């Protein structure tokens, strides 16, 4: 962990190829000798909802975590709202303020009440007054259907409620775009629906979203574009009905067959169809 590092320097505006919300170019990421991302070119336009699918270990979460620099890219460039976040002179805290992030494990702060979870960053980072921060928090809790959980502590929430509270916490910072890292993977099946409903309404409101998910029906219904990743590379992308309905690449077909018909093996385990 960095020791009280803080950059106040404002970087000059860096020009990008497009005015995309997220622009990633030839991104490589290695953990030691393990190459997790092998040259990713990727973008998310403003207002677009992009779902990233793929087998576990394909690098989709790492790609998402590179975008707000929770992982440091080994090489390559990433622009968020036109700012080069890989530039060391960029105030990364300021960039992260504009990016909402939702984790698989929720990561609510267990020592704070739901309301405090939503207000602490508003007050510490955005310097909002308590009254203002609480008003924003209450609006967002209502929005995700948790208006009655204001004084509860995270341990008292179900997984679905915790994840909705986490979404509300991100929304309270007024982000320009939202990153979702397998937001429903840690939930009991009957709790998934509420979280997807919140995400669906966010998408309908025009929020820019990048969603790493295993929920194929959500991707089909909500995504403007689906990206299939395998083995650290983007294999196939396009409209959801194209990628999910008529996949071109055999790896995509194989993956979808396994996800959509669990238990029904389409190809032998050693890989030859």
């Amino acid at each position, binding site marked *: 962990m960095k020791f009280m590092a803080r950059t106040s320097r404002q970087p000059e505006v860096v020009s990008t190829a497009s005015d995309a919300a997220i622009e990633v170019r030839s991104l490589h990421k290695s953990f030691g000798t393990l190459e997790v991302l092998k040259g990713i070119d990727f973008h998310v336009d403003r207002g677009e909802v992009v779902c990233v699918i793929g087998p576990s270990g394909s690098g989709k979460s790492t790609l998402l975590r590179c975008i707000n620099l929770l992982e440091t890219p080994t090489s390559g460039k990433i622009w968020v709202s036109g700012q080069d976040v890989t530039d060391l002179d960029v105030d990364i805290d300021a960039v992260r303020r504009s990016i909402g992030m939702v984790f698989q494990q929720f*990561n*609510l702060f267990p020592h704070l009440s739901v309301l405090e979870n939503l207000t602490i960053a508003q007050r*510490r980072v955005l310097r909002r007054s308590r009254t203002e921060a609480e008003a924003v928090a209450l609006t967002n809790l209502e929005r995700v259907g948790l208006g009655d959980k204001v004084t509860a502590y995270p341990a008292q929430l179900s997984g679905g409620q915790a994840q909705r509270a986490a979404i509300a916490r991100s929304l309270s910072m007024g982000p320009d775009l939202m990153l979702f890292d397998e937001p429903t993977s840690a939930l009991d099946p009957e709790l998934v629906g509420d979280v997807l409903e919140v995400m669906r309404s966010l998408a309908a409101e025009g929020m820019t979203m990048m969603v790493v998910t295993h929920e194929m029906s959500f991707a089909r219904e909500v995504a403007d574009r689906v990206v299939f990743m395998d083995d650290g590379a983007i294999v196939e992308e396009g409209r959801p009905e194209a990628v999910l309905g008529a996949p071109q690449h055999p790896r995509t077909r194989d993956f979808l067959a396994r996800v959509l018909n669990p238990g029904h093996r389409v190809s032998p385990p050693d890989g030859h169809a």
Partner: protein
Amino acid sequence: MSTTTTARRTGGLTRRQRIRLVRGVQYAAFLGVGLLIVVKADWPRLSHDYFNLAIARQLFPDILSTALKNTAIYTAMGFVFGLGLGLVLALMRLSEVAPYRWVANVYIEFFRGIPLLLWLFFLGYGVPTATGAQLPGQPYSPIVLGLGMPAAAYMAETIRAGIQAVPRGQAEAARSLGMSSGQAMISIVIPQAFRIIVPPLTNEVILLTKDSSLVAILGVTVGTKELTKFGRDALNQLVNPTPLVIAGLCYLIITVPLSLVVRRLEAHNNRAR
């Protein structure tokens, strides 16, 4: 002959009978030793030497108003100093800046490795001998440094372990809300770390309470005597060991409640996990 019947016939006892026999023998031995002590001990002599009420009465109220109070004050001062410095050392050990880690490591290994008594001699006699002057801030400075600096070494390791026990996702969530690493540490990680380490820190207070007896070697006046010194002086004056027994009981007044607190907190933490 089947195995089940042989097992039942071993020594002519069933398993149940054998358990009863072993337990009965232990209770009988315990009772026997207890009775022997009660019968054989020279009770009038023991109570005159160690529980002499006439002697004990002369110790009050000074043993409480001066000695117990000073023990508590020295312990508290050592603890507060140690906690503050320990937190700094813990953060240094976790720093990305290597020299901070080196300094903290050397400090921690040094103070964990040398006897407290040697360190107290150094502060009380070594420094004045070399410089020809006492440390400024008498009489408290050698006590605070004497107890606090070694305590900081132990507490640093406890605090570091506590910080590392907070899941990584907590800091990641804080950072992705735009908090700086310092803000994330102060508002999110450290409060949770302290919850985890309250039991071991309370143990540290118990150890410090007992270690405070060693400050007697710094040379104390009537007003600055703590329990052990007070008991020893009273032993010499009154030529009876009762003061030492009473002083011992006074330590237990501090340490036993703390022990009980630790046990309850540990039970609580185990349940919460």
